């Protein structure tokens, strides 16, 4: 077995910061939703990594298998994945409505239109 050390956690941090940066820096709302997804995936990786034990198997009762990984974090993440998918679905359908209402999903353009609306 190759020891992975803290490698997983470095990936988690890189993904998390990438996701947050995309959410903050990008003006395109679609890219923001993608950034959110990357951010959520990093947390999913975090959970799955913490449950893994080097050399551990799936939690089954059988001869010769004594060390097993903690299944609970992985199970929890099934729920978190569902939540992530639902969030993206709601977000994307809102974007469709925004595209219909404003003709754009660029945040800057939307803001200019809203400002004009306020003046008139």
């Amino acid at each position, binding site marked *: 077995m190759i020891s992975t050390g803290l490698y997983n956690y470095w990936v988690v941090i890189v993904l998390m910061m990438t996701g*947050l940066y995309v959410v903050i820096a990008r003006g395109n709302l679609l890219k923001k939703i993608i950034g*959110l997804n990357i951010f959520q995936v990093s*947390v999913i990786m975090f959970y799955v990594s*913490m449950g893994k034990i080097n050399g551990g198997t799936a939690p089954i009762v059988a001869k010769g298998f004594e060390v097993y990984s903690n299944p609970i974090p992985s199970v929890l993440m099934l729920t978190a994945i569902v939540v992530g998918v*639902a969030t993206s679905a*709601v*977000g994307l359908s*809102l974007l469709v409505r*925004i595209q219909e209402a404003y003709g754009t999903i660029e945040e800057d353009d939307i803001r200019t239109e809203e400002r004009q609306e306020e003046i008139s």
Partner: protein
Amino acid sequence: MITILLDRIGRSLLPLLVAAPLLSATVCILLRRARWAWSLALVVSWGVFADAAYLLYHVVHFGPISYAQGGWRAPWGIELRLDLLNALVLVIVTGICAVVALAAPRSLAQEVPERKHYRIWALYLLCMTGLAGMTITGDAFNIFVFLEISSLSSYVLISQGTTRRALTSSVQYLVMGTIGGTFFLLGVGMIYMVTGTLNIHDMAVQLSTVGPNRTVLVALACIGVGVGIKLAVFPLHIWLPNAYTFAPAIVTAFLAATATKVAYYVLVRFVFSVFGVHLAFNELHLHVVLLPLAILAMFMGSIVAIFQSDIKRMLAYSSVAQIGYMVFGLSLASLPGLTGGIVHLFNHALMKSGLFLVMACVLLRTGSTKLEAMHGLGRKMPLTMAAFVLGGLSLAGVPATVGFVSKWFLVKGALEAGYWYLAVLVLLSSLLALVYIWRVVEVAYFRPPHPDGPEIREAPLSMLVPTWMLIGATLVFGLYTPFSVGVAQAAAKMLLGISS
């Protein structure tokens, strides 16, 4: 014998709080008729309120209730657990759900096409499921799941506003809310790494043996930021004014009094029950961060509110300020401070949803929530505007209203902790509330109505009665304090570990 029976009843009523609205939300979709769906939502929300009220009585007299879902005992299974703190939060949240549902049909018909109503009611019930679930669950991961159920349904509810800006505010809330939820999840994961448990009660036991280390510190920070976004603590509040302004009036009245309150409860639960006073304040110095933010929220929220021309937006900024008071009470971490925070949660829910219902009435009759639309309304809609004045006085904390009760405890807490200047700041910021309420009063009572404006009548009884139920409650609980203050004080004692 009787106590065993009572215990059984209490335990079997607890899961109904989540199951009833969850199942009836799907039934709403099947019913498809606006009126039927509304009737179902009304019956369920009042039923759940009655259930919550009984459970509060039960908890006060017979002690906490614990229910093991699916028969799996805590700490392995998911536990539903009701003690004094969440029983009080539950009563106010379900009570607001019930009263707002009563007021809804007329206002909703104005803003949302009738063919969509049944879906609104399904979402309303789902949101209620999530909020009730967050409040009663004893499992940290379960809080996240219910948080997302309530958030996802509230994003959709907000997007149903009449203008297209409702859509952009909803997306803004979705992005921030998801970041908040994910940070919360991250924090829970870190506590799980340290303690190996997800049960809140068990976490507290394990953490007290672990003591402060870097992981626990980061976990507290992640949970603080995550819940802080949902709670709209000062610099994380930017989603709130837009969401409250552009959502349908009824949705605003519902969310303003429930979503942020439950988030506050979660914060209190984690800070006091899971991390504990010693770890959170003596080792991790939470108050150093939260106190200045709370003071800033009180002033910035109120000052920005003074300059708003849209009254719904003004009340939204006022919410930011009021959340500041609650966080202020929490960060004092003393008996009067925490009591003040919890009582203010209860009181603010009553007055803010009352005020937003007044705005729903104004919108129904004038077609606008702008300040200039309210010229002379004091004479044309006397009952509605009287409710606004009383609710507004309560926001400012005038004696004989609930606002006075909570500020009394906050000021007492600040003085006891030796922060006399903070007590002065609390009082000064209350004066600011008087300024923004006065602007409305002046326009409504001392300016003549628009001469060529449309004929404006008093709001319909179906909306006046619920509005006055809430505003009346602010007066009742302002004069008769044993219930709200008594329970909040007992809850604060429990959280701080003071034996009474």
